[in-house]
């Protein structure tokens, strides 16, 4: 049995502990907002937060989660009211949208560490791939979210 706390909910699952967290979230807990993109921690579409830190869940065995609290896009807010989600909506960031859960959670972690990140901070932390090329709007949305959080 693997014990897991996701978005504040406790789960006990009868699964192979080597299963990557990504597939546990998607296929066992039906939290499909976390995406599969590459399976080798390259693209970041599978990013979730573990105690507030980003983790690329596609290569992270569920057994390693232990007591940490997992936050997925579904748990970020009840009603898209998180400042990062609000900024994403206002800047109309997503195109196809597939990478955006990972982008939003990575930005959330960045803003927790640095309340007012510079462009260089954004370049360093935002390493998730977006094939639609929404980078410029992501950058603007992060700055906007920083303003909102500061306000």
């Amino acid at each position, binding site marked *: 049995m693997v014990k897991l706390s996701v978005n504040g909910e406790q789960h006990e699952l009868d699964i192979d502990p080597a299963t990557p967290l990504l597939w546990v979230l998607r296929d066992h807990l039906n939290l499909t*907002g976390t995406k599969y993109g590459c399976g080798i921690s390259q693209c970041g579409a599978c990013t979730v937060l573990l105690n507030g830190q980003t983790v690329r869940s596609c290569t992270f065995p569920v057994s390693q989660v232990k007591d940490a609290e997992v936050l997925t896009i579904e748990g970020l807010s009840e009603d898209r009211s998180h400042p990062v989600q609000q900024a994403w909506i206002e800047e109309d*960031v997503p*195109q*196809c949208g*597939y990478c955006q859960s990972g982008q939003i959670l990575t930005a959330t972690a960045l803003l927790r560490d640095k309340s007012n990140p510079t462009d260089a901070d954004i*370049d360093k932390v935002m390493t998730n*791939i977006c094939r639609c090329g929404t*980078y410029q709007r992501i950058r603007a949305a992060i700055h906007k979210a920083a303003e909102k959080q500061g306000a």
Partner: protein
Amino acid sequence: MKTITRRQLMKSGATAAGGMMISFHIPAFGKAEPYKPWETDNAEINAWLVIDPDDTITIRVAQSEMGEGVFTSMPMLVAEELEADWRNVRAEYASVNRSIREDRVYKRMGTGGSGAVRRSREYLQKAGAEAREKLIKAAAEKWYVDPKDCYADYGRVHHRSSDRSINYGAIAADAAKVSVANVEIKKPKDFNLLGLPKNRLDVPAKVDGSAQFGMDVRVPGMVYAAVVHCPVLGGTVRSFRFNAIRNNPGVLEAVKLENGVAVVAEHYWQAKTASEQLPVDWNIGEEGKTSSEQFKNEFMAALKEDGVVVASDGDSHTAMEQANNSIESDYIVPYLAHACMEPLNCTVHIQDDRVDVWTGTQNPESALAAAADVAGVAPEKVYVHNCFLGGGFGRRSNPDYVREAVAIAREIGKPVQMIWSREEDMRQGRYRPMAAMRFKAGFDRDKNLTAYTNHSVAHSILAEIRPDSVEDGVDRTSVEGLQNMPYAAANKKITHTIKNTHMTTWFWRSVGSSQNAFALECFVDEMAAAAEKDPLQFRRELLAGHPEMLNVLNELARKADWGKSMPKGSAQGLAIHESFGSIVGQVAEVTISTDGELKVDKIVSAVDCGNLVNPKTAEMQIESGIIYGLTAALYGKLTIEQGRILETNFDTYHMVHMDEAPVMETHFALAGGDKWGGMGEPGLPPTAPAVCNAIYKVTGKRIRSLPIKSYVLQRA
């Protein structure tokens, strides 16, 4: 070596899970016949739109939302004519099953060729106008007044002679029952919605994880399939040893496909892990001895051949001989993968009376036809439920993955979700063709261009998939941009040679223009240098006969401040290209550090797509085309060794990331009139040449093959 398929397992009475009986609950699913997913309790004014009593307007979208914004732009076209309150509008996919049952009521459902607005604008406007007139007529009948004395505005019908008005929701049910004839659409000067920047309707669902992509579909009782394909395209399965994985956790069975094996398990991770451990013996022919180096040599050798004449003017041969000076250059580009963020996947449920397919497809009609064909049922019994597409770029208009998923579902008799791993997605690509181009230009004593020849050698998509549409040895998609080269040359000759390899090709964002604009626009800079002219001035002179291109060029030069002084190591580069009905010019600003690191700092675009539906999504498409094109320009290449593709994931098939994304500025220089150009692709072609032309200014080195990162760059 023993091959076990499901049929054999059933015969032997064993289960694929190694003797353990696993039962699946497959609940009844939509038993009503005929099944009509489009039926609604609310008022369907026509096939395109439904109005609820609370004034919510649902507009059906027959194009595929893959990021380009059709879930917003298509409803805008309808809502403009409907005089709707835009805040009440929501979008949903139109049913392809209904379209084939009802004489193609949704017309063209494929999304590609930057054609969503170009090809469906008018009938969507008419659908909105018809609904508007029906609402007016229903209100007039209710009030016993002349409909001519009524008008629609902002979601209400008004009576001119009195102050009566009524909201659409209150008369929608009546409006659905009346009929109107000869409705007229508005003149552009009367638009009050088209041309205004509107937020995307699909964004809220894309910031909270609720947007449903193909991979997010969950069907009760569903199992998962991972597929291993022959690593060499064209190879087939000789045998496989299911015994090696049959006791793996969750594994249910394996299905032999022509070019691969599907491993089916209770969960995807189990299926994927087992598929990677499955020993498969492949039949690989001569394709297994090929390499990209060999292809390159063969394409370059074919540049020396004469080729088929595509276009010709004057006597280029004599003019070239008589030229005072001439230049010649060869360009070459590799095969490329689409690499959509969402690896290809498809979910299928086959029941006695129906087949359901959930996937993200750019072409629900071809997906439906493919599913019907493989399942062996009438098309009317197939329901393709389109999802949001995690990228398309052309790849998702090919139904190969749908065929495969239906074949697996047919064999296992359970609802199944097939997911290709990133590696399989890369290896089973339908690639952007490889192409090589030779250009020659001759000048007179006064440095005027007098002769121009171009010979291209390209892998032909059409020769591979629709040989009948290859005209006299020319695949027109291969010579887009070369055949219609816009620069004035009194004597010119354009020739072409088709050269196909075992690689499978398909339409890749901007198709022929993706490679041709790179080569042509770089060569135009070479010609400008030979003519001792500024690249902008040279283009202006030779585009004098193309006022719309000239207009874009001039707007671009102004907005980008062409010729401004740049710091050491930095320079501007220029390119312009027309494709899919739109002209896009770009100026790239690049910097090369003292240790040779390239940074593309900024790209300014000027765009003429004639008219705009939604300036916001139009601008996003230019930005998207730039990043997609920049990734291809900087990094894009597939290396083939022993017939196998080496770049199978993002660790080797590199993408532009945030830190490399340039600042992008988009300006519109619209011709207006009847011109409604495409937006999804035209932003891409000028990016590579604009960047390469800027690099030349810093390094003195011409980039004549892509990707750029294969060059060592140094400041001159």
